[in-house]
């Protein structure tokens, strides 16, 4: 039986090596990423929590099945996010699910900080509007914005997760931010015109 407290002091790479010797250690690894990946899958797929949990199960199984394919030249975090991304995209293609979740308040604050939209909207984030603005973006922009601002990945990690050149990621983020801002402002204007 694995002592999960002892897992905390181990790095991802150490746990990968240990999991290949004793599969019980894989549980430590999956627990470490469970919440982060579940949130990520929900954000990019807009699946319900229940559906996202099913996707996550498959992610963990695929991760374990391909564990020997992990190369320490990449970060384990990027590698497992890539598997989660691919699995989520494939699940989206299989099933077009209607959104039943909204972004968390702290997520929205992260967006707000970076986009500097607070000046325009007096620090009052409208969860539904930001959620809606994000959902209106093309998948390629939504993916990079979620990874950059909500999962706080750096450009190289995002490049590794999405398997795209680092410079392309930079361009997508730049363009994505602008498109997000445009969408958000359109929604704000619409909202005010309805109120008036």
């Amino acid at each position: 039986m694995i002592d999960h407290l002892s897992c905390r002091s181990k790095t991802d790479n150490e746990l990968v090596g240990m999991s290949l010797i004793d599969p019980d250690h894989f549980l430590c690894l999956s627990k470490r990423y469970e919440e982060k990946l579940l949130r990520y899958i929900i954000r990019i797929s807009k699946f319900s929590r229940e559906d996202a949990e099913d996707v996550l199960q498959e992610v963990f199984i695929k991760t374990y099945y391909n564990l020997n394919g992990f190369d320490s030249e990449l970060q384990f975090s990027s590698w497992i996010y890539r598997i989660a991304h691919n699995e989520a995209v494939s699940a989206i293609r299989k099933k077009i699910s209607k959104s039943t979740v909204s972004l968390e308040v702290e997520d929205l604050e992260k967006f707000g900080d970076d986009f500097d939209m607070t000046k325009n909207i007096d620090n009052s984030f409208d969860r539904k509007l930001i959620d809606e603005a994000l959902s209106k973006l093309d998948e390629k922009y939504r993916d990079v914005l979620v990874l950059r601002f909500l999962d706080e990945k750096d450009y190289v990690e995002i490049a590794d997760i999405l398997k795209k050149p680092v410079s392309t990621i930079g361009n997508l983020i730049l363009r994505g931010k602008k498109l997000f801002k445009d969408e958000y402002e359109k929604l704000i204007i619409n909202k005010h015109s309805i109120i008036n």
Partner: protein
Amino acid sequence: MENKDISQIAFARIKGEGIKPISRQIFSIKRVLFWVIVGTSLIIGALAFSLILSALFNNDWDLYNKFGFNFILRTLPYFWFISLIIFTILGEYYYRKTLLGHRRQFIVIMGFYMISTIAFGSGLYLVGVGNYIEQSLFEKAPKYRNFIINRHEFWSHPEVGLLSGKIILIVDNQLTIIDSENFIWIIKMDNAFINEPLELKVGERVNIIGDITDVNVFDAKEIRPWM
């Protein structure tokens, strides 16, 4: 709603279904294979480039005035141009599939490929690999002759005064050659200008400009080396 312990559920499935990680060797073989394809594509691309150089430098550009733009269209080494493009795309595609290949931009990878192909291919041409392969393929691979439309085909039109073939006999001022269609031709050289540094000998392949004067008899005005 109570949150499920997904890790535990997935782990129970892994144990219950007896799922084992794929062997490390499979991944290693896959990685090596990608690099082998990348390297092989680069080598074939460079060979194609050396053959393009060989075809361009050996082309009879002075005939351009006589045949015009049609000359260029008929003598360009399309087969090698297409090979070069195909193997460059293949190399770029598989480079991107290597572990960190995705981090580099398309233009950077293509730039590296093009510079390497030009440098390596020029080197191969300079040491004579391009000419050697072209000649070997022409002589030993009959399908190659049928497959490519280039200067060989251009020189296989005796009806318009262009003939090519291998010398099989030299008697006085007369050659006997066999063309790529295996037809025997008598070449009269009384009025022929022989291009230097051509040395007429049995087994040598030559290009001839002239006119048909009788059945399988060709009156040569100029004789050139084949390559």
